[in-house]
């Protein structure tokens, strides 16, 4: 296959026509054939009239190891081809060799800014496959944690997005607030990022005594802080100049490309998994889904900012509904017994050993379970084959689908706007590549 693989440099075609336009030939190596390249870029690139430029994979504005192959006419983007896979960690494949419990820490590491959402998507799929009921208290706690996770994800997004466009203070403020959410994570799960807190059948443990006060602190402080972000950005003429009308995508296009979450809702499509297919008792809560109209960077920004308020309202409702009770199913075939039981109950001891060594078995079958994470629909397709390990795990990662239409959104925009567009899509490369 070596002969077919062409290095751009070796193309006499390009070199002949405009030697001055060609980047140092030895550096640029594309593992694609000339035929494939011709389909990706416009004919003008092949004559050297437009410039091919690599943005990333080490570019600070591509939010991780994302490489964009750009075709530029001056500063105008003619084509933008996202090249992914630099952070491929094989999480889906690794999960096939672990039993269901051991696969949970892996899910933390896909979208590492919203670990609890991933946990819930995976555990929800396992619960659906095996048929486990989750106690009500655990469901409400999951809702609270999910909404905190959404805020966490949005805060990092807002901070980095604003930083990309040039607003430094927003980043600092967002990190300051995110710290409070991480404190809740730390209090409940013992880890600030890789929580692994949600387990098949419920939660790892009940929340500690100071959980209520920590959450209340967030609820007290946040409305004011979100107001601050609005003061800094909402009507800021410079911010609007950079975002309004930039990176537009129509509702049809957004649906066709499989976008979900705030990116889709920014184009005015009312689709939210929490409403469309409620999970974890989301139908017990009242909330609205903020929508945009233009599908540009500004509308996507507004959608996320408005979601803060909805998240806080859901958390308030859930805190009121919270009643004492178990947080883990009492089905000993899937949930390890409480530790003190194994001291006197032979049966518990057997269950304990069985669950921590082999794990529980899932029946033959295939399920799909989706949650609305901060970035969009995070779904897990799980296929069981009667053994304690999944036959196949697939994660439908929102970042992956939302990233794909980047070429559509950035057509004809300026190079500087591309940075704003990437930021507005809110990708996490761990989620894109899995």
């Amino acid at each position, binding site marked *: 296959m070596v002969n077919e693989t062409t290095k751009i440099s070796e193309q006499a075609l390009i070199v002949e026509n405009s030697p001055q336009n060609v980047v140092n030939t030895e550096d640029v190596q594309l593992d694609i054939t000339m035929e494939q390249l011709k389909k990706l870029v416009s004919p003008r690139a092949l004559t050297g009239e437009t410039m091919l430029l690599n943005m990333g994979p080490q570019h600070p504005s591509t939010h991780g190891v994302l490489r964009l192959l750009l075709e530029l006419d001056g500063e105008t983007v003619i084509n933008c081809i996202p090249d992914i896979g630099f952070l491929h960690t094989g999480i889906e494949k690794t999960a096939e060799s672990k039993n269901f419990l051991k696969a949970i*820490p892996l899910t933390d590491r896909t979208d590492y800014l919203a670990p609890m959402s991933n946990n819930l998507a995976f555990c929800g799929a396992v619960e659906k496959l095996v048929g486990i009921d989750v106690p009500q208290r655990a469901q409400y706690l999951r809702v609270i944690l999910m909404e905190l996770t959404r805020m966490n994800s949005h805060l990092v997004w807002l901070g980095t997005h604003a930083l990309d466009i040039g607003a430094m203070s927003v980043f600092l403020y967002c990190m300051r607030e995110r710290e409070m959410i991480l404190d809740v994570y730390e209090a*409940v799960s*013992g880890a600030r990022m890789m929580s692994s807190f949600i387990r098949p059948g419920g939660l790892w443990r009940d929340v500690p005594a100071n959980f209520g006060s920590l959450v209340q602190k967030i609820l007290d402080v946040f409305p004011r802080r979100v107001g*601050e972000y609005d003061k*800094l950005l909402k009507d800021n003429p410079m911010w609007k100049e950079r975002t309004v009308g930039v990176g537009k995508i129509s509702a049809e296009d957004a649906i066709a490309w499989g976008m979900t979450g705030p990116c889709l809702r920014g184009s005015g499509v009312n689709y939210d998994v929490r409403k469309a297919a409620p999970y974890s008792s989301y139908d017990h809560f009242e909330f609205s889904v903020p929508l945009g109209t233009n599908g540009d960077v500004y509308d996507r920004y507004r959608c996320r900012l408005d979601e803060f308020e909805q998240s806080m309202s859901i958390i308030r409702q859930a805190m009121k509904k919270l009643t004492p009770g178990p947080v883990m199913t009492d089905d000993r075939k899937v949930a390890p017994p409480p530790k003190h039981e194994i001291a006197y109950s032979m049966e518990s001891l057997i269950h304990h050993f069985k669950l921590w060594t082999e794990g529980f078995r899932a029946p033959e079958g295939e399920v799909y379970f989706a949650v609305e994470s901060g970035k969009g629909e995070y779904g897990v397709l799980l296929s069981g084959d009667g053994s304690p390990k999944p036959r196949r795990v697939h994660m439908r990662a929102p970042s992956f689908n939302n990233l794909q239409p980047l070429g559509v959104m950035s057509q004809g925009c300026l190079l500087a706007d591309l940075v704003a567009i990437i930021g507005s899509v809110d990708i996490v490369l761990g989620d894109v590549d899995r």
Partner: protein
Amino acid sequence: MGLIKDVLTKLPTGFATVLKTLKDKPVTVQYPEETRPMSARFRGRHHLKRYDDGLERCIGCSLCAAACPADAIYVEAAENTNEERYSPGERYSKTYEINMLRCIFCGYCEDACPTNAIVLESLEFPTGYTRESMIYKKDMLLESPPISVAATPQRTPPGKYDRPILPYPPIDTAE
């Protein structure tokens, strides 16, 4: 024109917001001189615990190694005798190693341990210059015995420790 008006009216709101934070107390700490308190559940470095009489809790059952998603733990068990007793019951862990470079600090080992022997406590930062130094051996993990109690192995009267100590202090009712 609209833009100029916007700049003159809207921008000062933003600047005022930033200026207002001048009166706020800093939220950062001067690490490492200052550290922030960690939650009681913090999953940091592992410790192997002992009973009050100095015997090790670990009975060498390898359940932690089986539960570890990262395959970071290696346990080799050996038999206790009354002359050389390490832990109550029949067996103890002769070798106990955790590869801190593999460990992801998920806490599964702590959950799986039937005697609450291995416990993740607040962070002492595991650092080292070589790969070998990051494989924590049993002597690095085992906590020292309570004051004025003999370390293991102990000489114990026959019959006293034939079975593991019951009941085990439960983790899940702690805190």
